[in-house]
């Protein structure tokens, strides 16, 4: 088993994916990127050379590779305090000026965050007033998100978070069990469009009232975080909100002064300057 990779190996991989496939991982945080590559090598029984060969000779392999490279771990109602804040302050804040509004989940992974959003909106009686775009780089994970189907064993965490969120009912009201899987009511995705979008190479494509990009930029270095914040700034209406992960920070980003902190604890920001 290979337990260490040097920077030169990682560089060969990032250069090849960039040239061949147009994905740019050069500014990803190195230690997690390295662990992901090691994991891909281990799971696939590959060496650096066979990996490089596969990436250049098998055009379809890239999607599996991206799926292995990205960290897709997520939960419903992750950080329940954040979701309570959304329900009690942020969404009411948006409603002051708009009857209908748009939300972007950037890096939505397998969709737990999107389902959580719609459960919350439904309980607030707002689901029909909201349009949601959910994007990710990883097409394999987007297919999972579209299916709204999860292993039952994941539901324990989700249920606990929902209880801490103090939802109106039981999470069980929203899914049925079948063959060890939890299948969510497809109605919960009717206002959602899932799309592949790369935050690194892609452009801003619409304007939103709320953007969630939680636990995605932790995989980027500071230079890339800075670039991506500009895209989010560009994608928000004035006075729109941006939510990042609770342990992330924007303080070193050039555009930080165009935002105010709405909630420091839950890392919610509001765009105040164009």
């Amino acid at each position, binding site marked *: 088993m290979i337990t260490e990779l040097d920077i030169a190996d990682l560089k060969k991989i990032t250069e090849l994916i960039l040239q061949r496939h147009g994905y740019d991982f050069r500014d990803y945080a190195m230690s997690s990127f390295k662990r992901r590559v090691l994991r891909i090598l281990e799971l696939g029984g590959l060496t650096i050379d066979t990996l490089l060969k596969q990436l250049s000779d098998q055009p379809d392999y890239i999607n599996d590779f991206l799926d292995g490279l990205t960290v897709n771990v997520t939960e419903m109602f992750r950080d329940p305090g954040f979701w309570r804040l959304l329900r009690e302050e942020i969404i009411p804040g948006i409603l002051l000026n708009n009857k209908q509004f748009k939300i972007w989940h950037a890096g939505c992974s397998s969709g737990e965050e999107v389902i959580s959003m719609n459960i919350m909106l439904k309980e607030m009686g707002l689901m029909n007033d909201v349009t949601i775009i959910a994007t990710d780089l990883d097409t394999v994970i987007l297919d999972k998100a579209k299916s709204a189907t999860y292993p039952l064993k994941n539901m324990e965490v989700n249920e606990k978070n929902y209880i801490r969120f103090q939802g109106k009912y039981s999470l069980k009201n929203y899914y049925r069990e079948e063959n060890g899987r939890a299948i969510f009511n497809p109605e919960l995705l009717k206002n959602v469009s899932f799309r592949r979008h790369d935050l690194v190479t892609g452009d801003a494509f619409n304007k939103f009232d709320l953007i969630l990009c939680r636990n995605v930029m932790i995989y980027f270095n500071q230079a890339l975080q800075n670039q991506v914040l500009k895209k989010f700034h560009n994608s928000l209406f004035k006075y729109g909100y941006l939510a990042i992960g*609770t342990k992330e920070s924007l303080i070193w980003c050039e555009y930080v002064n165009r935002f105010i902190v709405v909630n420091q604890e839950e890392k919610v920001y509001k765009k105040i300057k164009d």
Partner: protein
Amino acid sequence: MSRYNLHNSYKAIVIGGSAGSFQGIIKILSQVSAGFPLPIIMALHRLKHVRHGFVEALSIKSNIKIVEPEDKESIRKGIAYLAPANYHLSVELGNYFSLSTEEMVNNSRPAIDITLSSSAYLYRNKLIGILLSGANRDGAVGMKQIKDKGGLTIVQDPAECMIDTMPKAALSLTTIDHTLSIDNIVAFLKELQQHYK
């Protein structure tokens, strides 16, 4: 003459702990004096949904500041850093932290192995790794990486540990330079500090 043969070229200390390590950590932090010349990076197993209270609990008796770093925060000496709940904590070239939500490792997030392994890579022979009491094998692989890169390895004496699985796993996987009681770990750190005066 000291038995440790210490010097002042170490750049960081990394500590892993799990079940039964809390009192030991408290003792270490309460005995280390303000202005400690290195960063102390701690990966301790903890409840994943309890975001608050741990730093406060560790801070009560500590002489040095305890911080749960945010993603990409710079690493500074004289501060004890604690891996946040439900995130793995790594160190990066450029001397800053990064967080990740990768799968659990050894059933743990934060995983001690991830913090130890990335520290071994960054600090090489300028790292001291300390592994305390615990009920699983997390940290053993990380200690081996520290040793393989020329760092110094210390485990809490299994005889003193509430649960000795963790230090024993490290002892059987790699060379451990010193097997010490918590009191001797404190003495070691005090002596180390003298070399930076």
